[in-house]
Every structure is written in structure tokens, then in C-alpha cells.
């Protein structure tokens, strides 16, 4: 899939006299690009074409004799299946919650880290660490070492505080059973806030400080500077962080698979597709669901590309 964007490439090819010569020049320039381009087209685009084809077929590995054309049957089943619809809702809720919370947290932390203070480098290192933990390991960590109702750190801390004040029985909620989706979200927010923080920190550090200093000298308050100068400058970084985050979190599999195995209403679309394909072996239906996800993502991706292309226009305009 490619999305057309109307940005004109700068024409810097100059004194090349004849068309034949120019053509060889063009190909010499394109040559280094071709291996990557051809490889990408074969490995990423062909599977999607195949998915599209299979989505219109009856194809269940358990019933090999019934393979054939299904028309829109698989799509109808996708849109009438309660589980599938539930997982669409779950995907949206999960993505929106994780992206918004980690963006806001990331912004606050980036603003703090943009200031000079004792041990700034150490705090940045601490902040990056969650991003460096293998996602499966992070999910296991949250599930077993933190959320576990009998010996997880959360309930352990509550218990320790209760004991400190000499009280009786501390409340020991079963986090995963009571709020499974929130539990998954918390683990994901913990992993994604550093990513947002990094992007926003880069944005903050690319602000033109001389202009801000001029505003300060002219008597602008910190809030005014944030509201009218920092925030507009950060807007595109916020959008970009949000859109990149959405693209990754819509696809999240590791956390859902590890923390709840898709139980208790936490199955998102990738997990559901994985199940339909890997457990139920219903290839047609899994592909149809995949196509639906692709269409949904194209909507986000188009927005994302528009944002990125506005960044490019800025770069070209400089």
C-alpha cells in the first residue's frame, strides 16, 4: 500500500544535456535504492495481497475439502461475530487510553527533564529503562511480580504500610481479575511513556531558545511562554508521538497474550486474529479480520503521513 502525498521533491538535477544521458544518470541514482525497494515490496506487499485473496475464500484447515470462493461471507461473519466486535471495541479503548495517558505523562516528564537539575542524566536513564525491557519480560513482570494478589509488590506495599500503622487486615485487591483491561493498560503505559518522553524531549530541545528568551525579557510569564510558544512548537511532536504510538499499540500482542491471554474482555484484534488463525485454523475469517484491521490502520496512517509530510514541508521551507 502506498499513500500519495503531494510534496514536490526539490529538483536539483541541473546541467545534463541530452535525455539519453539524463536517463543513465537517473538509473545510476536509482540503483542503490532498488534492492531495498524490491525487497520491501516482495516481503511486505505480497503477503497483504494474499491476505486479501484468502479473505474472500472459504478456507479452514480442519475442512480442507470445503475450500472455495466465499464472497463477502467472511466479512459478514467478522461483523456479526460478538467476540470480534468486542475485540474491536477493546482495541480502540486500549489504544486511546494508553496513547493519551503516556503522551500526557511523557510531556510532563519531558518538561521536567528539559530543565537543568542535579542528576538529570541519571533520571533520564531511569526513565528509559522500561523501554529497554523485552515486552514479554515486562508483561511477565507486571503479571507475576507486581499485580499478583498474594505476593505481588502492589499488595505487598499496601500490606507493609498497613502494618506500619499497626492496622489489621490490609485490602488485597486482585488487580488482574477486578480490572483486567486497566491492568494491561498500566503495563503498556509504563513501557510507552519513555518513548513519548524521548520524542517530546527532542521537540523541546529543538525550540529556538533565543526567541523564548526575548519573550521572557519582554515580560511573558512561564505559562504564557508554554501556552503560546512551547506548546505550538510541540504540537507536531505530540501528534507524531500519538500517531506512532497508536500504530504500535493497535498492533499490541505481547502484553495481551502474556498478561491475560485475551481473557476477561481484553482480547484485542491482533490477539483475536491470532486465535482465529492459530487455534481455530479458520484462515478465511482470520484474513477477513486482518483486512478490516488494515483498513482501520490506513485511516490512522493517512493522518500520520499527513502530519509527517507537514514536517517535511517545514524542512523544505527552511
Amino acid at each position, binding site marked *: *500500500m*502506498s499513500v*500519495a*502525498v503531494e*510534496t514536490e*521533491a526539490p529538483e536539483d538535477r541541473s546541467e545534463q544535456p541530452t535525455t539519453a544521458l539524463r536517463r543513465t544518470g*537517473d538509473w545510476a*541514482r536509482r540503483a542503490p535504492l532498488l*534492492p*531495498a525497494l524490491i525487497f*520491501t515490496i516482495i*516481503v511486505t506487499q505480497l*503477503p497483504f495481497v494474499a491476505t486479501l485473496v484468502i479473505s474472500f475464500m472459504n478456507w479452514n484447515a480442519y475442512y480442507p475439502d470445503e475450500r472455495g470462493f466465499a464472497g463477502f461471507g467472511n466479512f459478514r461473519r467478522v461483523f456479526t461475530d460478538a467476540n470480534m466486535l468486542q475485540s474491536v471495541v477493546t482495541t480502540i479503548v486500549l489504544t486511546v487510553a494508553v496513547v493519551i495517558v503516556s503522551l500526557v505523562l511523557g510531556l510532563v516528564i519531558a518538561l*521536567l527533564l528539559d*530543565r537543568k*537539575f542535579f*542528576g538529570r542524566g541519571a*533520571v*533520564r*536513564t*531511569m526513565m*528509559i*529503562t*522500561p523501554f*529497554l525491557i*523485552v*515486552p514479554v*519480560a515486562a508483561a*511477565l513482570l507486571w503479571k*507475576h*511480580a507486581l499485580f499478583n494478589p*498474594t505476593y505481588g*509488590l502492589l499488595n*505487598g*506495599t499496601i*500490606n507493609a504500610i498497613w502494618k506500619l500503622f499497626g492496622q489489621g487486615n490490609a485490602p488485597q485487591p486482585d488487580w488482574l481479575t477486578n480490572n483486567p483491561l486497566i491492568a494491561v493498560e498500566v503495563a503498556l503505559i509504563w513501557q510507552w*511513556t519513555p518513548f513519548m518522553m*524521548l520524542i517530546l524531549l*527532542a521537540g523541546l530541545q529543538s525550540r*529556538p*531558545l533565543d526567541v523564548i*528568551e526575548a519573550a521572557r525579557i519582554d515580560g511573558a510569564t512561564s505559562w504564557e511562554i508554554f501556552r503560546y510558544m512551547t506548546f505550538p512548537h510541540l504540537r507536531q511532536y505530540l501528534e507524531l508521538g500519538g500517531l506512532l504510538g497508536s500504530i504500535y499499540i493497535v*498492533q499490541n*500482542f*505481547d502484553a495481551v497474550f502474556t498478561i491475560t491471554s485475551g481473557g476477561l474482555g481484553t482480547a484485542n*484484534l*491482533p490477539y483475536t486474529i*491470532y486465535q482465529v*488463525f492459530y487455534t481455530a485454523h479458520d484462515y478465511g475469517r*482470520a*484474513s477477513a479480520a*486482518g483486512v478490516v*484491521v*488494515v483498513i482501520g*490502520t*490506513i485511516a490512522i*496512517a493517512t493522518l500520520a*503521513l499527513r502530519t509527517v*509530510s507537514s514536517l*517535511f514541508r517545514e524542512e523544505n521551507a527552511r
Partner: protein
Amino acid sequence: MTITERTPARAAAADAEAVRKPKRNISTFWFGLLAWIIGILFVLPVLWMVLTSFHTENDAATNPPSIAAPLTVQGYREFFNSGASPWPAIANSLTASILSTLLVLLFAIPAAYALSIRPVRKWTDVLFFFLSTKMLPVVAGLLPLYLFAQKVGLLDNIWLLIVFYTSMNLPIAVWMMRSFLAEVPVEMLEAAAVDGAGLIRSLRSVVMPVVLPGIAATSLICFIFSWNELLFARVLTATRAQTAPVFLTGFVTSQGLFLAKVCAAAVVISLPVIIAGFAAQDKLVQGLSMGAVK
């Protein structure tokens, strides 16, 4: 942003800092404290994981938590010795991550060159094409790849993962390498050409010094993403070619719940990424922000 624009901004930043300093000491203290508190909260789960991994199973599973319990490497010993050894999975992950990263660089650097220093026509469209492949959910392409692998007998084969990881990381790498190559001042290339430097020589003495940190950042990010990948590794590999994350999920289900051992396993499998990430922290920050923003 080009190099020439950056210097005055930096100088202004330094000036601004000097002007700002005297009157902002108190709020600086409180904001610094707040940053420390948040930083510690974020790193705490990781510290807890490491601490638990060095406890005995009994001390790991107490409530309230036993922070001062004696330390032991029992969890690690059992992770490496009990049942299936994790070494083959770790070796598979290293092979897949390193080889796919090398392949990515092999494809991405020439492509990025064609998109930045002497850009082909419509270079933005090409760049967007690469990026758009990254925006498609991988789960939708999983089934055909699985069926294809089944047909040609490539299931449970590490090379299939290497090819897939290469395609997964190539768009990001092209994207990042382009922004790093765009930092190479064209004037310097032209000056080198005027002085009679050939392509190889100008690549080595003008382009390489500017781009080397970028190559490091790109490699690091490709390595991390390949090392972390679970979904494809789980579907496309079984026993021979399984990777470390797949081993980790299987390890937990087959062992039941032994908290110290699970934490030890999580630490071991995260370790290569953590070491690489800490060692190249600045490059990681630079690479991520550049790849994402520029």
C-alpha cells in the same frame, strides 16, 4: 535542521541558561525532586524484578515483601539448568537479530544515500512508501507467510525470521539513515570532489565520520526490535528455531509459577538490550527522535 543552524541555537541556549540561573534556584530544586521521584517510580518495577531474581523462591513470595532477604543466584542456576536449556533460544535470537540488522544496513544505507545526498526524483514519495509499510498491521500478513513457509518447508527455520525481521526494520532504518545522511553538508562533498577525491575516498573521509553515529543508532534500534519480537517468532518457529521471547513464554507455562526463577529469566533475556541501550543511550535518544521526527 542543518549543522550550521544548530550552533547559534546552542549558543543561545547556553546564554539563556546563564541569564536564568540565579533567580530560579528554588523551583529548580522542587522540579528536580519531582523528576527524581517520577524517575524512581518508573525504574522501580525493573529494580524489583532484579532484586526478586536474586532471592530464594520462599523470600520472593512473601507479603509484605522481604527487601533485606539474603541474596542468592539460585534462580539463575535453575533457569539455566532445569529442563530445556535457554542457550539455543538465546543463540537463535542473537543470530536472527544480528544477521537481520546487518542485512538491514546493507539495504538501507544505499537506499538512504539515493534519498538524501543525491535524491532521486519523487524521493519523498519513496520515503513515504517505506514508512507506509510500517503502518500496516503485521498480523494481517502473518497467515500468508505461514502458509508459504509451510509449503516450502521453512517453518521452524531461523532464516525465515531473519528475512522477516529485515523487512520489519528496513523502513525505520531507511527513514533514520536518510535523516543522518541529510546532515552531511553537500558543500563538503563538492569541495572534496573539486580537490580530486573519488567516490570511495569522499565517502570514507566526508560521509563516514558524520554518519557513523547514525549507523550505530540505527543498528541498535533494529537489534532491539528484532530481539523483542514475539508474534512471528511464536507462529513461525517451534523448537529448533525458537527465539528467547518465545522460550520465555513457554518457560513460564511449563514451570508453573516460580517467581524468582521467572524474574531471573526475564532479566537474562532483557540483558542484551539493556546493556546495548545503556551503552549507547545518547545515540538511542538521538536516533529515535531523529528517525521519528525528521
